[in-house]
């Protein structure tokens, strides 16, 4: 688990608290608005405004968190044929592999293939709502 994922896991635990707080504040705000409307008391209007500001702040933080993306990386080696120049990316990177190592035979001309490069490709994933609320475990590749 990368550091980003660990940070995400720590923050993820706060989501239900944020969610319950948000719902509570919205209910409270509705209550104060109705009270202000029916009693014509200015205090209720002030309270409703305060609760709405708090709900807005929590809602903004929650929406920011729900839009979090996590980067996943796949390491590939770029194989190139010494003879015909054919190249392809291979996901099977061994511990013994290194750049400029001869690695296999070209499927097109039968020439020797060389590892021209080893690099990682980034893939950004957005966790689903179920994953965020801890109701579904993440797919581990």
């Amino acid at each position: 688990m990368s550091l980003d994922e660990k940070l995400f896991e720590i923050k993820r635990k706060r989501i239900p608290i944020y969610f319950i707080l948000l719902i509570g504040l919205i209910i409270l705000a509705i209550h104060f608005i109705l009270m202000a409307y029916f009693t014509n008391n200015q205090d209720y209007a002030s309270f409703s405004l305060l609760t709405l500001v708090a709900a807005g702040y929590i809602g903004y933080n929650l929406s920011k968190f729900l839009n979090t993306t996590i980067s996943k990386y796949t390491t590939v080696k770029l194989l190139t044929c010494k003879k015909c120049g054919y190249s392809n990316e291979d996901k099977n990177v061994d511990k013994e592999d290194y750049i400029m190592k001869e690695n296999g035979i070209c499927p097109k001309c039968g020439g020797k293939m060389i590892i021209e490069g080893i690099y990682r490709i980034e893939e950004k994933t957005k966790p689903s709502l179920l994953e965020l609320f801890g109701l579904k475990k993440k797919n581990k590749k």
Partner: protein
Amino acid sequence: MDGQGIVNTIMTLFLLLIFAYISQELQIWKMVSEIEAYLSIFRIARDHALGVTSNTFKKLLPKSNSSKKIEYEKIKNIDERIQELVDLTIIEPVNLDPYGIVKKIKHIILVTEKTVENEIKIILPNIKRSEIKNLTNLIDATRILNFIYKFLDHNYRIARKFKSLWLLMQIYALLPFITQEVKALENAIEAFNKGLPVGDSVGPLVASKLIKKYSGFENIDTPVEDTVITRVNIDNREIYIVKAQGPGGTTGRLDDAIEWLFNNIGKKFSMIITVDAALKFEGEKSGTITQGFGVAIGGTGVEKFNIEEIASKHNIPLYAILIKMSEIEALSILTKDLYEATEKALNIIERVIRERSIEHDKIILVGVGNTIGIYP
């Protein structure tokens, strides 16, 4: 003002004071909880690094038919030896009189490097040199992670002990930078463990590509330890390509290699070009290439100093080709963007050689960086 008015004023002031106190306490609580969360993450990262290092050593242990008890003792002994290597302290030389300090720093670095390598050889006598180099890198990364955690934990404990808001604020302010460094080192652990090229390897990668393109890996000499020199011909110019010897993880002894060239090939070089990774600013795109003047070498500054000395003594222009990347990318497995940038860097180098020199000139090109996962 009557009695009631005075009481009201005092009450208001008292309430203000209470609010100010509560606000500060809340601020401290927020900082403490965040610092504690990050500290626990850094501890996990340190423990993970230690675990990876220990497992890598155990996997490389030669198989034996000895009893379970002896095997257990061996493994326990390895864990203790690794802990010793991780806790190693490198003491900088005194700088009250800075004259000659570079030599002293180089001496200490070389002694440390040799000792760690010998220790690894004693623990694992049958492994390849490239594996020793990778394990040295792994231990170095673990050592830094260990130091960061211990240092931060020490400062945090002091701040809590003396309830110092200012100390806490300093730690809190530094957290983003420390996190960046820990992230980079955590990624480095993966790369060093697998022996794969990292972002910092772009310099040696460019050098390797040039060697492949112009000489096909022929005439590779190793006159200096951990460093290779190859002579190639580009547009009728003699180019001496210097890089660390791969595919093990090492940065080589580039200054010694250049000194060897001056002593054995001659003093008339028309330029020295260094290719290296450079830290980008947040707004910059990774893989951007910039040109510069001077020696592009990071680290302790010893090699940079020595190359600058040689170049200024013989009045040789110093050109630098820099491939920009973030700190995290520099220590993580090479990204596709950076890999593609090496192709562009290659074209720029060829252009610089063509435009800034004439035929039959002798040029030194240095691929600076860790050559892990890159041959030769």
